[in-house]
């Protein structure tokens, strides 16, 4: 009963995607003071183990101070702060090596790590992720086996209750979690996550698998995979979904944490509102074609050549919340709709089954609640209507026959 009451409470108090972009001067002045005090305090601390300096890195990559400040003002805008915060954001970026980060991988393809590592040329977002104090990351660390486990233990011990835990990948819960184990002791992913998250300052679930289960949790979900938020309770948790998550949003979350010492404002799915408070559709460059009813009917037709709206070939922009139509990927190079294919809703829950089917929802096969035959909603609906029509026909014919009999009986 208590569970139910909690459930109903949650239902009616769930936070929505509303974004309050102007909270008044008083609020921002107070916030500025808090952030400034915090930044000054951080400056007095020595960096953690990462000795790289951002100025050197930027110079090595041929990025000028001016470019860096342009980036800082863009991030200030992305975090929905007034432009007066730009110097603070720049300072926070320089201090990113003060935040120890442990990055673990569970049921995933390492796509989020790859998204950071394999950009065409490292841009400021990617460089920043180089200078964070990354204490543990399976993909890019040189240690392996027992050495790697030792590294993890050390990091967890040294930065107890201070480190940010980045989780990439879903957690398989079937077979007592034995679908995924890690290390020489065959620790299940679930135990692994629980052990490491216990002394984390906050947990950041990166990518759709870690947030909502993603592809591993797609139907029929043989490993019963779930996202971090389904198993982790009592810890500050930030979800950064998308497949892969945009490095800009990861940097945004870390900078916000360094700047304020707090996690950013989240929506009902625990996604930062600064990144997921906007619908792709509303900032899409092809939106005018949607309103005009100009659609790509099939790949390569005249509509496609004229950059028409991709709704009829399955674009899920109208149902997807993400900022990629604004900030795009790889430092603004391009994004899915920009290259001429629809959005697959990769930052929404259960996107593989419910969004990524490359045709409008009305034409997509939806699983029956029984898990049986897949039909489109329209096929199912037409089936219902036909059944009702047949029923009506039979009743009408029977009534007609019965009526005639009655008349002849009377006569």
């Amino acid at each position, binding site marked *: 009963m208590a569970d139910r009451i909690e459930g109903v409470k949650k*239902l*009616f108090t*769930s936070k*929505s*995607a*509303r*974004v*309050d972009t102007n909270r008044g001067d008083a609020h921002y002045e107070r916030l500025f003071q808090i952030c400034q005090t915090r930044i000054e305090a951080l400056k007095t601390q020595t960096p953690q183990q990462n000795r790289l300096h951002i100025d050197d890195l930027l110079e090595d990559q041929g990025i000028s101070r001016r470019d860096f400040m342009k980036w800082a003002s863009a991030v200030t805008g992305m975090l929905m702060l007034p432009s007066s915060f730009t110097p603070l954001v720049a300072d926070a970026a320089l201090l990113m090596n003060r935040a120890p980060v442990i990055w673990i991988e569970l049921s995933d393809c390492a796509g989020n790590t790859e998204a950071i590592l394999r950009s065409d040329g490292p841009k400021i977002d990617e460089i920043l992720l180089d200078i964070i104090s990354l204490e543990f990351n399976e993909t890019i660390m040189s240690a392996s086996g027992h050495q790697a486990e030792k590294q993890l233990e050390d990091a967890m011990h040294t930065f107890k209750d201070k480190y940010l835990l980045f989780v990439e990948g879903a957690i398989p819960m079937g077979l007592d979690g034995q679908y995924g184990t890690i290390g020489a002791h065959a620790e299940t992913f679930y135990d692994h996550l629980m052990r490491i998250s216990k002394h984390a300052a906050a947990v950041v679930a990166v990518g759709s698998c870690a947030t*909502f*289960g993603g592809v591993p*949790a797609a139907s*029929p*979900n043989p490993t019963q995979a779930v*996202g971090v*938020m*389904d198993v982790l309770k009592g810890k500050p948790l930030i979800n950064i979904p998308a497949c892969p998550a945009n490095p800009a949003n990861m940097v945004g979350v870390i900078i916000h944490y360094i700047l304020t010492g707090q996690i950013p404002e989240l929506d*009902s*799915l625990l996604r930062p509102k600064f990144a997921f*408070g*906007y*619908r792709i559709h*509303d900032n899409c460059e092809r939106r005018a074609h949607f*309103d*005009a*009813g*100009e*659609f790509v009917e099939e790949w390569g037709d005249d509509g496609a050549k004229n950059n028409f709206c991709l*709704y*009829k070939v399955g674009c899920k922009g*109208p*149902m997807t*919340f993400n900022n990629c139509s604004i900030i795009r990927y790889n430092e603004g190079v391009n994004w899915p709709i920009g290259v001429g294919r629809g959005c697959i*809703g990769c930052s*929404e*829950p*259960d996107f593989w*089954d*419910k969004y990524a089917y490359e045709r*409008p*929802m*009305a034409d997509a096969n*939806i699983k*029956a*609640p*029984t*898990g049986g035959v897949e039909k489109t*909603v*329209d096929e*199912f*609906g*037409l089936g*219902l*209507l036909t059944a*009702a029509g047949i029923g009506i026909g039979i*009743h*009408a014919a*029977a*009534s007609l026959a*019965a*009526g005639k009999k009655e008349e002849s009986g009377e006569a």
Partner: protein
Amino acid sequence: MKPEYKQVKRMTTFMRINHWVVAICMVAAVITGLYIGHPYYQTYIADPAVDKYVMAWNRWIHFMVAIIFDVSSIVIAYLYFFSRFEKPYKKLIPTAANLKEFFEVILNLVTLNRRKKFDSTHSDSFNTVFFLVFHLMLVWMLLTGLQLYVHGLASGLSSIGNWWPWMLHLVTDWTVPVSGWLIGTTAPTASIMDVRVSHHLTMWLILVWVAFHIYYQVWRTIYWKEGDISIVVGGSKFVKDDKA
């Protein structure tokens, strides 16, 4: 000798106007809603976009009829309890008399009018329950529709004030988990797409309801011989004198 017939008033002028407003709105909502779900006709590629605006008009009509529908629903919900003409909620309370009438009306339908042991002069409890199902489906369409609509107001701003998206979120956000449950999603977290599927599916259920509703009213008119079909036009039907 021909029996004498008496006129019985069944629908007030307002109820009849409401019926036809709702009927027209529904046809418009289905036509435009199907287009929104899957644009089923194309625009001329040679026309400049500014002359077309086809999806936008479809959505405009869809939202306009939806709002008319919503307001009508609120009035009907009020009349359920406070109508001076006839309070439908009285026929929904499962009293012995109402239950008996409910099953007698079903028996009348399945025995092809061989058995008719209830008073057909007034609104019967079977039809009232049948309409309640319709009204519940409409309320569901209203709530899921507004939930889908409020996503276009992601900034939290609206031309009629910020209270509007705020209120829509407050009143309709719960339809997301409930839609997920209704369509039997296996995913750990429900999403807007579940609301969309539910909204689209409920349209088909309403169409099935409409098919039966039209058939049943015509069937009553033919077999009861009391002119039921004219209720919705003139407001009254005609019953044999000994009954009325």
